[in-house]
């Protein structure tokens, strides 16, 4: 019963894709633009069912987008290259702390200069971590990466050059466009976009609450969300390009059967390292954007081991190997506990049970990649032909 619901989710997605690819290119572009615009407009429009009442919707969207970006990066490591990484929060942490140190703690670089450096540093740490450990077997790799995630957190907690337990505060925000006076009053940005408030199903324009375009202040999370969303779209495009290239094919070969791939001349180790580095880069990017977010404050408490597990849960639950599945999983994991704050306490319990349940009944996740669905279809057909399975 639940199985058929999940099945229909996967097949519904398939049909959506088919209809989409059947359209001519200009129509597809229009649809994509509209789809993207919908997400940009979401925190402004605040539709009644989706919006969160007890916590700022813009802030939740920001967190969801950050999670989705991380899930995209982790999807490259787990889904494309088949490497289970349980310490991904380490990269998130490295990106955030590099940004913090460069922009606030020791130097005072502007944010957009610190961002590429943070990505590069995180990528380097990914290579440093991967080089010795990728030769290790799959399940051991998981534990080693878990150890590394914890080592990074402990180093950050205990090193005073990195702010130790107090963390780093006053991290500057990305540069704003337009005037930015100090107090809460006065003209911000180039123009202001008023929010919508709803009276039942009738929207009203609420001109008392508006978002300036484009000021990054401490009160409004929406401009940060827009920035993150833009970055997410760019990374999505990059992900698509790389998956369709020979790199993506090499990853697939390595994941499915490493020995066969080696025999066919694929330098598997190098490609695994590349996957790690790319995953790390994206993790660092997300961490960097998180650090210069609304609060402007990071401390070691924000990077617990638990977060790694939630990242993994996001990718696995969403559908490992499918970038849309990973995005969906990331948004789900970040958004649901905030939308239903009453069940926030049970968040971990529910995710734990969901992980086990999915592992047993639907390990491919909610929106699995196409090849997995094809394989399952073929298996189901064979099962039918053979008249049922034989129980050993």
């Amino acid at each position, binding site marked *: 019963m639940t199985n058929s619901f999940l099945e229909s989710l996967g097949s519904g997605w398939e049909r959506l894709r088919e209809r989409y690819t059947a359209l001519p290119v200009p129509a597809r572009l229009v649809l994509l633009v509209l789809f993207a615009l919908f997400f940009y407009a979401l925190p402004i429009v605040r539709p009644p069912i989706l919006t969160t009442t007890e916590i700022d919707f813009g802030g*939740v969207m920001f967190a969801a987008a950050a999670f989705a970006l991380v899930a995209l990066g982790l999807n490259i490591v787990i889904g494309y290259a088949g490497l289970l990484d349980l310490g991904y929060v380490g990269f998130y942490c490295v990106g955030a702390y590099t940004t913090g140190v460069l922009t606030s703690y020791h130097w005072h670089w502007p944010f957009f200069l610190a961002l590429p450096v943070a990505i590069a540093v995180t990528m380097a740490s990914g290579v440093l971590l991967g080089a010795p450990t990728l030769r290790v077997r799959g399940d051991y790799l998981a534990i080693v990466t878990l150890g590394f995630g914890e080592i990074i957190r402990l180093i950050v907690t205990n090193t005073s050059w990195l702010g130790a337990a107090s963390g780093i505060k006053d991290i500057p925000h990305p540069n704003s466009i337009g005037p930015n006076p100090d107090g809460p009053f006065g003209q911000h940005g180039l123009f202001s976009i008023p929010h919508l408030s709803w009276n039942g199903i009738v929207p*009203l324009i609420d001109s008392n609450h508006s978002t300036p375009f484009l000021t990054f202040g401490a009160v409004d999370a929406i401009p940060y969300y827009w920035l993150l969303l833009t970055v997410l779209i760019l990374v999505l495009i990059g992900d698509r390009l790389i998956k369709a290239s020979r790199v993506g094919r090499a990853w697939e070969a390595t994941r499915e059967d490493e020995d066969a791939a080696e025999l066919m001349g694929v330098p598997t180790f190098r490609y695994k390292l590349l996957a790690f580095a790319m995953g790390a880069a994206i993790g660092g990017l997300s961490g960097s954007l998180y650090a210069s977010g609304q609060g402007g404050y990071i401390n070691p408490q924000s990077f617990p081991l638990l977060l790694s597990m939630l990242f993994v849960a996001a990718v696995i639950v969403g559908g490992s190997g499918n970038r849309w599945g990973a995005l969906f999983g990331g948004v789900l994991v970040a958004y649901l506990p905030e939308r239903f704050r009453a069940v926030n306490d049970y968040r971990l319990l529910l995710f734990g049970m969901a992980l086990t349940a999915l592992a047993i009944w639907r390990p491919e996740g909610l929106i699995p990649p196409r090849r997995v669905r094809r394989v399952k279809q073929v298996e189901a057909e064979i099962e039918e032909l053979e008249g049922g399975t034989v129980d050993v």
Partner: protein
Amino acid sequence: MIRSTLVRAIAVTAVLGLSVTACGTTNDNKASGGKSSAACGKNLAFLGAETGDAGALGLNMVGGIKLALDEYNKKHADCKIGLKEFDSQGSPDKAPALATQIVNDDTIIGLVGPGFSGESLATGKTFFQAGLPSISPSATNVTITQQGWTTWHRVIGNDDAQGKADAKYLTTTAGAKKVYVVDDAQDYSKGLASVVKTTLGSASAGYDEIQVKQTDMSATVTKIKSSGADAVFYGGYYTEAGLLVKQLRQAGFKGTFMSGDGSEDPAFVKAAGASAAEGAVLSAPAAPAPSDFNAKYKAVNNADAGLYSTQAYDSANIFLAALDAGKSTPEDINSFIGSYSGTGASGPISFDSKGDITSSTIYAYSVKNGALDTANPAPIK
């Protein structure tokens, strides 16, 4: 065929959307259409940890606020004030988004909180830029009031005051010659412990750090014993404090054990075991609650008062006093707080220009006969 259906669907949705938005452009937000002078039916907000590992402390604070509101609403039956709670789970991650929610809620006139120092640092700028006044019952980190946030206040002495008093207690009242300092590497703990260490100067015998949730402290115990220290100061919370003193006593350490307000909780005695906790001294920048406080608290909240309940009660009462004095805009309330002077359940309260409480006496609570004596602490002069 597919194309035209899709295009039609999109067109219809767009038209519907436009027509619907054209319906209302009113800002009929009564609350924002000029603040009414009576400020009735408005709310106080609480931001802190109500669930999660530190949830017990947040619940203590909410209890104190509810008691204050209950007393106020009984006296002003036609002009009641409510409470909106925002659970941050003690982590600075969710705090900014909750802060935005609070400042965008026009019914909220002030914030009691944030509960912890991390959250305060993450949200201080938000409240400052939005002009919402806040009074924290429990955030003690020294750097918070150095940020220039004129809307931020606290009714509790900061770690500087507490650390200096603790060091003085150890060297004078407890008569210790060499004090070993331990902390758990967290922000609050380290802040407190480093002030103690600096104040001790040459009386400091050594320093070690443990981790939160650590159970085996044998290495630290060995270090303490071999340093010849006759007193130990622990900066941190009651769980690790209890485990540390237990293992210290088991190893034969006989000196004084002292910790700060994070350990000042009956759960410390449970964690340490009654015999190990005996004689331990826990400092807190709060006087014992007046004798009828617990009874009143229990009547409203159906639970015993705990750490920070009196501070939260006093914080809420300052806001309510501002309303009584006829203030209703955030700026007016903020200046009222700045010039406030009175005595609350936790002691005398007035604020300096940075938002810190001007005078704070630190009290030393001792564990006697297997229980934390909350009624008769010794003030540390």
